[in-house]
């Protein structure tokens, strides 16, 4: 790939004249932070996006992919982060989707099933072809995605953050499968932001930063520190003791919590944790270990099966989101656009999302009964928020849809942090944000904690979590397997706990 340029509406240049090459039978790591342009570049290769500029050659031939179908024909397969599987259909049906059937119009499943099973065994990705997708675990679903490409005789396989959904002990098996693929002559592009993976399994690594190719090196000529420097441009310090007033007042107390997910599976079992006033408790863990269900239960979007969630001694499990919000709990959801704002509302309207029927935003009669919205108050609040939180925008009535990721997060934070909440639950606060915005958000979180709020931080970015948390709770398969305090743990502990290998006895 030479000189690839990809722009998105809104002015973002995701790929800025990027060069990238791939050799047969190699595992090539594509490294970069969130938003560096890795997925975009590969989506261009896969034909999902059309580049504004640049050229692609595959096996020596110049190609122009108008859609993934073209790329597939050229022998390229891609496994996305968000799996593209049809839940109601079987594994085989998903694999043969879009392919011509030997029997013309009619489906011919038996030979296909056989081939799927064989491929699975050959490459160390065993799967039962008859099962329907919704019944599979996420690791198994991933296997199906890979089989889709293998079935189509892909010679190039692009994997987008494949280990983000795997538990650490599954990763080993996954890497073995990758080795099998490599031996089969297939070239693999591994998109990741995890340095240890790059070091473990790749032959070469390309680092992207800010949409540009910073470096391409054989893996054995670099180390993690160097890679980190290339990725970020600066070093990451380890967790330090933060200056703070030690309190023992517990704000959030979760005891023996059991929660079922949408599929009816137990995703949180016997979970105990607490967050004290004026502290940031970081929740570390591979995504999919119950974090989402835990967070949803705390903020009232989900009812637990059993157990208790207490806020300053008041039982809040089972309460509605409204009641919990009224108890001064703030929630910054991981999906800013889907859950955190109304994109077609203006900044002013978004800011009043939680208290639009209360004073002073709303005029009241007899102290209780809401009447009309107070436009003056609403505009004043919007102007203040824009100034205080540095939201770059054309004005208070600009639609939230027009804001960039960083500014949108500022908006959400402005709304959530406005009322001096006593508990703040934040999920993936800096996902997709640029460096400046990330800095700002982190400083805000620390500020709140200094003010005395209790903060529950759920973050995939382990470095970030370690950097700002006062204590670290590790979650594995729905339980807290360890609570770590600075200077009282060794770095391997985190990884081992996230894998479920090591456990600590916990105090409530």
């Amino acid at each position, binding site marked *: 790939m030479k000189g690839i340029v990809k722009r998105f*509406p*809104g002015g973002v240049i995701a790929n800025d004249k990027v060069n990238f090459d791939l050799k047969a039978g190699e595992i090539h790591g594509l490294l970069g932070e969130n938003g560096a342009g890795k997925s975009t570049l590969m989506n261009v290769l896969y034909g999902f996006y059309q580049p504004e500029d640049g050229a692609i050659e595959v096996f020596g031939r110049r190609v122009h992919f108008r859609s993934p179908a073209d790329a597939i024909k050229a022998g390229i397969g891609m496994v996305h982060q968000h799996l593209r599987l049809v839940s109601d259909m079987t594994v085989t049906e998903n694999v043969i989707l879009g392919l011509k059937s030997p029997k013309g119009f009619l489906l011919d499943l038996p030979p296909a099933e056989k081939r799927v099973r064989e491929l699975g065994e050959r490459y160390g990705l065993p799967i039962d072809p008859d099962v329907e997708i919704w019944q599979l675990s996420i690791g198994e679903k991933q296997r199906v995605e890979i089989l889709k490409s293998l079935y189509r005789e892909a010679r190039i396989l692009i994997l987008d953050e494949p280990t983000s959904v795997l538990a650490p002990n599954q990763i080993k098996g996954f890497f073995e499968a990758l080795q099998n693929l490599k031996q089969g002559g297939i070239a693999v592009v591994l998109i990741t932001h995890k340095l240890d993976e790059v070091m473990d399994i790749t032959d070469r690594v390309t680092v992207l930063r800010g949409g540009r190719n910073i470096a391409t090196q054989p893996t054995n000529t670099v180390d993690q520190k160097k890679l980190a420097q290339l990725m970020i441009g600066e070093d990451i310090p380890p967790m330090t003791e933060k200056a703070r007033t030690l309190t023992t007042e517990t704000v959030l107390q979760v005891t023996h919590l059991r929660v079922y997910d949408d599929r009816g599976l137990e995703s949180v079992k016997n979970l105990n944790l607490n967050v004290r006033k004026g502290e940031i408790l970081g929740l570390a863990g591979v995504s999919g270990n119950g974090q989402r269900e835990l967070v949803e239960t705390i*903020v009232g*979007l989900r009812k637990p099966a059993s157990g208790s969630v207490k806020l300053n001694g008041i039982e809040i499990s089972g309460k*509605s*989101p*409204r009641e*919990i*919000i*009224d108890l001064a709990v703030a*929630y910054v*959801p991981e999906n800013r656009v*889907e*859950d*955190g*704002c*109304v*994109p*077609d*509302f203006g900044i002013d*309207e978004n800011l*009043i*999302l*939680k208290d*639009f*029927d209360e004073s002073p935003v*709303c005029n009241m009669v007899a102290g209780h009964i*809401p*009447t*009309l*919205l107070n*436009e003056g108050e609403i505009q004043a609040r919007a102007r203040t928020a824009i100034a205080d939180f540095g939201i770059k925008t054309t004005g208070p009535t600009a*639609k939230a*849809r*027009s804001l960039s990721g960083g500014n949108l997060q500022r908006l959400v934070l402005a709304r959530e942090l406005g009322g001096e909440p006593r508990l703040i639950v934040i999920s993936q606060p800096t996902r997709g944000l640029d460096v400046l915005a990330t800095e700002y958000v982190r400083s805000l979180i620390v500020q709140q904690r200094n003010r005395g709020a209790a903060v529950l931080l759920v973050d995939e970015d382990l470095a970030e979590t370690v950097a700002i948390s006062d204590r670290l709770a590790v979650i594995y398969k729905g339980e807290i397997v360890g609570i770590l305090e600075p200077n009282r743990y060794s770095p391997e502990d985190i990884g081992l706990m996230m894998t479920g290998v090591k456990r600590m006895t916990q105090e409530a």
Partner: protein
Amino acid sequence: MLGIKFTRKLEVSRRANLTVTLISYVASPLVVLAVLAAAGKSPAIALDALYRGSIGTLSGFGESIVQATSLMLLAVGLVIAFRARVWNIGAEGQQVFGAISVTWFTLLVLKEPWPGYVVIPIALLLSFIGGGIFAAVPALMRSRLGINEVITTIMMNYLAIDALNWLVRGPFQDRSIPGSYPESPVFPNQFSLPIILRYTDVTIGIVIAVVSCVLVYYLLFRTPLGYSIRAVGLNPSAARTSGISVNHVVDSAMILSGALAGLGGGVYILGIAHALLPEQASGIGYTAVVVSLLGNVHPLGVIFASIFFGALISGMSSVERALQIPETLSLLSQGVIIVIILIIQVFARYEIRRA
């Protein structure tokens, strides 16, 4: 497809919306003329009849306003529902039920000498409540059971029509006249809405309709309930996360929508029909959906859209009479206009470029 790419615009400018709406307005009569030309009729006579029937004569103008009145009330109710993303296709049944409620009350107090300014407000209130109750059934089925409201409201429409047909041949039938007619007794005079434009059928109904639109405007854009309705319609997930009770909002939107439709039915029966007749189920509930769309799903836009559409309908009746063609012409023109509006509206919302 065809090498054309659609990208959702970041901000739909008001200007784009208005332009598109204006084009729709202009295109509509042109469509009518085109249809007529296709049927081999003289456009000159048609245009003249269209004009006189809609605004050119007093009776034509009056008829336009009368049509607009019912459309306005139903359409503005639909605006509330649609803003909450609740697809209320049941305006037809709700307005019929509103009329049924009024009839029930009228027959109850038929012999009482109560004056107009007492019975009329009560009757209208009952039509409002009746429509609301009728809409509550599909509302609850959606909010508590997750059943698609499109299906349930359509079922309720047929239920209402059958109930209407049964009532006018049964319990509500006028027994005082010889023969068996499917109609209720004619309402006594005090039950008629006062006429405000002499020599026409224009009653204070139009005033009620316009006032309702203004009230709905304030409701949607200045009250907390309206805010929550819009929030739920635009992003129910964020609304729920922020503590808004989506069920409560959906119920409210649907019930209010039905209440306004019921009121529309009440205004019609008290202002025009003066009795419960099978013609009460005229299909206006479906036309109102189109009118609310033409009004950009905005309460003030609906005022203009209803008047426009009312004029169009009235004009087309006049064309039918002048050219001696049956009323199906109106139906056809409406159909074509709707599809064209739907197509034109896309241009306001999307940027269209070559791929």
